[in-house]
């Protein structure tokens, strides 16, 4: 199975097949586009992270002393806009998904390679608009763009940023479209739906949300820009509009968008936990269908962001009920991942440490979601730091932990090099500790009543804010480390074999890094997903033989 024959001459792969800037900017190779995305989302991640540090530094003291109130408002808005639209949403799907979906289905590329490239260009153009808007006037509406503040009262460059997000939306739609068609039409012979890696199930669910949800936010933000320009009276109460309508439209996308961030992360975790437990995923069908369940019910819970916005009591009850239903599939996944460890043969590699971190933090994030779906408690904690802590547990503790875990896991496949294991373990630990120190105090702050988006605050919230800022600096170090050692490994890392983790999955049957067209001949799949028992037996036979 594993080829250990030395390779004296470097084989042609997708990285050295062609050189020059043009070969990258005009590539239609999904793997190269994934790397373009990797570079760009990393760029945006560090910009968003820089703003996060500014927020935490301002909040170190109760007084608004580091920057002006307006500056602070722009800083948290940019942090939110960049992290949500330009990092979290594209991160796993556009980087890991782009790289892995064709490899995992046994195809040469995605269904529409040129649209895939177009998607990256739209992302960059959208990003450029957003960055330009931020430098030229900034934007101070919060990433939620609530009306009528955004349409009538904000004097900042709202339209430019809204148009940036609008354009970026199409990049997301194209990625989703590509995934759906690829998974439907381009699976290798024998790769039935029930043999699909769970990574593909979750990306399929994600793609459905991208295609169905994103047009709504695109149109909504276009309406905001139009209202600013033409005073149409869609959202402005003085012109007969309805500001609450905006919230419905916004959350109709932006709540499912949370699942765009977390579903791919769940897919990554399913791959990692099986590989390092050497077992098939416990309850494969339940985990797979849970992804679809989340995608479907996820569309029906948006108004749980609006329990204090003056919606009817009975509407609130329906949305609360549905929010509890959507919690169940997530719980099922957590239980199944944990059960996968049972009677496994567990290796404590860096990706596995991220899995443990993910399950722990996602559990806390999910459980605190129950507080927010609970009508009576939500009224008290909504719009406070409790909400901030909750969604950072899901998005940072969940999505980014999984993204980093996945990046470590597939790094040898992507680059052909291994990363330094002990540095990686250290930074995983820093991320975990720093994250908890940053965000756990915010749950307490929120219940104490500290509202979010406050530039200054009463002094009794001081101690918890100091803890949070201290944690953020640890977290920052944990994020800078991988950046450094990944770059280092490109040149100095040990060469990776085709399958360094002895993992199941078609992507591990091709060399690291793969050739431009992935498979010399179309693979035929005759085994179930995660056939680790067979892999283990083969190895035993090899050792004995």
């Amino acid at each position: 199975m594993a080829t250990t024959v030395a390779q004296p001459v470097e084989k042609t792969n997708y990285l050295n097949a062609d050189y020059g800037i043009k070969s990258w900017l005009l590539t239609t190779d999904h793997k190269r586009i994934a790397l373009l995305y990797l570079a760009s989302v990393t760029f945006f991640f560090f910009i968003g992270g820089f703003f996060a540090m500014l927020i935490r530094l301002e909040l170190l003291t109760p007084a608004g002393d580091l920057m002006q109130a307006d500056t602070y408002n722009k800083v948290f808005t940019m942090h939110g806009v960049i992290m949500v639209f330009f990092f979290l949403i594209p991160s796993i799907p556009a980087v890991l998904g782009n790289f892995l979906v064709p490899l995992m289905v046994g195809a040469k590329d995605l269904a529409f390679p040129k649209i895939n490239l177009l998607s990256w260009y739209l992302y960059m153009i959208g990003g450029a608009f957003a960055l330009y808007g931020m430098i030229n006037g900034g934007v101070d509406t919060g990433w939620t763009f609530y009306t009528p503040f955004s349409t009538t009262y904000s004097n900042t460059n709202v339209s430019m940023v809204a148009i940036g997000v609008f354009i970026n939306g199409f990049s997301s739609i194209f990625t989703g479209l590509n995934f759906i068609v690829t998974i439907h039409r381009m699976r290798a012979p024998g790769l039935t739906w029930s043999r699909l890696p769970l990574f593909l199930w979750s990306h399929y669910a994600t793609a459905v949300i991208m295609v169905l949800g994103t047009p709504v936010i695109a149109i909504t933000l276009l309406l905001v820009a139009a209202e600013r320009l033409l005073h149409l009276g869609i959202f402005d109460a003085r012109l007969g509009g309805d500001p609450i309508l905006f919230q419905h439209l916004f959350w109709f996308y932006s709540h499912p968008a949370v699942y765009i961030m977390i579903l791919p992360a769940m897919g990554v975790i399913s791959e990692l936990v099986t590989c390092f437990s050497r077992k098939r995923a416990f309850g494969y069908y339940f985990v797979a269908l849970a992804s679809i369940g989340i995608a479907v019910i996820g569309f029906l819970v948006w108004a749980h962001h609006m329990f204090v916005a003056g919606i009817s009591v009975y509407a609130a009850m329906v949305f609360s009920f549905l929010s509890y239903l959507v919690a169940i599939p997530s719980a099922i996944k957590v239980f199944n991942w944990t059960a996968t460890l049972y009677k496994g043969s567990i290796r404590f590699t860096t990706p596995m440490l991220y899995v443990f971190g993910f399950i722990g933090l996602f559990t806390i994030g999910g459980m605190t979601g129950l507080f927010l779906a609970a009508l009576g408690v939500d009224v008290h904690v909504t719009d406070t730091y409790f909400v901030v802590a909750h969604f950072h547990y899901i998005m940072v503790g969940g999505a980014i932990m999984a993204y980093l875990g996945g990046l470590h896991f597939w790094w040898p496949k992507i680059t052909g090099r291994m990363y330094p294991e002990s540095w990686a373990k250290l930074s995983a630990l820093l991320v975990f500790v720093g994250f908890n120190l940053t965000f756990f105090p915010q749950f307490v702050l929120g219940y104490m009543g500290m509202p979010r988006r406050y530039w200054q605050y009463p002094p009794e919230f001081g101690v918890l804010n100091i803890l949070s800022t201290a944690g953020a600096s640890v977290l920052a170090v944990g994020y800078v480390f991988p950046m450094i050692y990944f770059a280092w490994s490109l040149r100095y890392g040990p060469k990776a074999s085709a399958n360094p983790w002895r993992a199941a999955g078609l992507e591990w049957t091709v060399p690291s890094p793969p050739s431009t067209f992935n498979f010399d001949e179309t693979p035929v799949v005759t085994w179930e997903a995660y056939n680790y028992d067979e892999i283990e037996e083969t190895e035993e036979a090899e050792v004995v033989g």
Partner: protein
Amino acid sequence: MSRALKELEQDGLRYMLNFPLLPDRASTLSVHVDALYFFLVALTLVFSVGIALAIVILAIRYRRERQPKPVPIEGSLVLELTWTIIPLGITMVIFIWAAAIYFYETRPPRGAMEIYAVGKQWMWKFEHVEGQREINTLHVPIGRDVRMIMTSQDVIHSFFVPAFRTKADVLPGRYTSVWFRPTKTGRYHLFCAEYCGTQHSGMIGEVVVMEAADYQQWAQSGTDGSLASAGEKNFQQYGCAMCHRSDTQGRGPNIVALYGKPVLLDDGRTVLADETYIRESIMNPGAKIASGFKNIMPSFEGQISEDEMVALVAYVKALGNGMANPPAPVANPDTGVYPVTPNKEPSMVAPNQPKPAPSQPKQK
């Protein structure tokens, strides 16, 4: 600067020693919210610690050194059903419990005293029915149900008193309400919880819960008449009384005893005449035409401030419960002629006649 630092240090020390995890409990609601909160915290602890322990134990027990060969397991339907049904059951308990609290907190009790609030960038204005006005400080009596009737002059704000565990968005163009019954005298934070621009974090104030007698004294000292009487002046000043007469001869509907009643519209719908309806009928009269009347009233959008509007609403409400004088028929100041009821022909239905019961929404 050094003084500020010193103060900060002292404050820091104070809060380091006295480290609260909960805000004050100062309303009837806060006990209920805290009870559910503690239940949820306990549940979170059980599940998070349970999962964490399971991971640690399984990871140590089945580490590769100890378990070199994995045992293939497909799954277990019994387990899947268990961990689907039990969480579903638990969440349904939370759902019902939380919905009951929400139901309680969104239904103001009958006879609650009313205080009007107008939010604007970046301050809170409060108007008590006795006529007291205040900014960023809200005086309320202990042990009384207080219903806040709130609107915004500009963007969305949110009225949040952590010690009362309640919050409600304050919207432009309509009235929203929130109620509480204070149980502890003292001074509590009032925050704007919905981001509203530059000085969002400066839009904070204080709720002062007073003994009932102290409040009475405070509310009645040094005011120039009640809120409704201010509304009555506005009613005359804007010429409302010309058409909205207290008999059936007005060009517009008779508004005495209007508040809280169902109103039949010319398109056959029936709406409840609440604060938002009254406001809309003044700002955008064409939106809902009372049955039997023509769309002839001009809009007062941009002419009446939210403060005046609050007074008008209070006046119309006071008319309903006999607390204010009905509007007298007023002669046209230019001609000295009393307005004549126009258009007798379009409707034979007497305006504002109480409608038969079936179409009436159930009274709270």
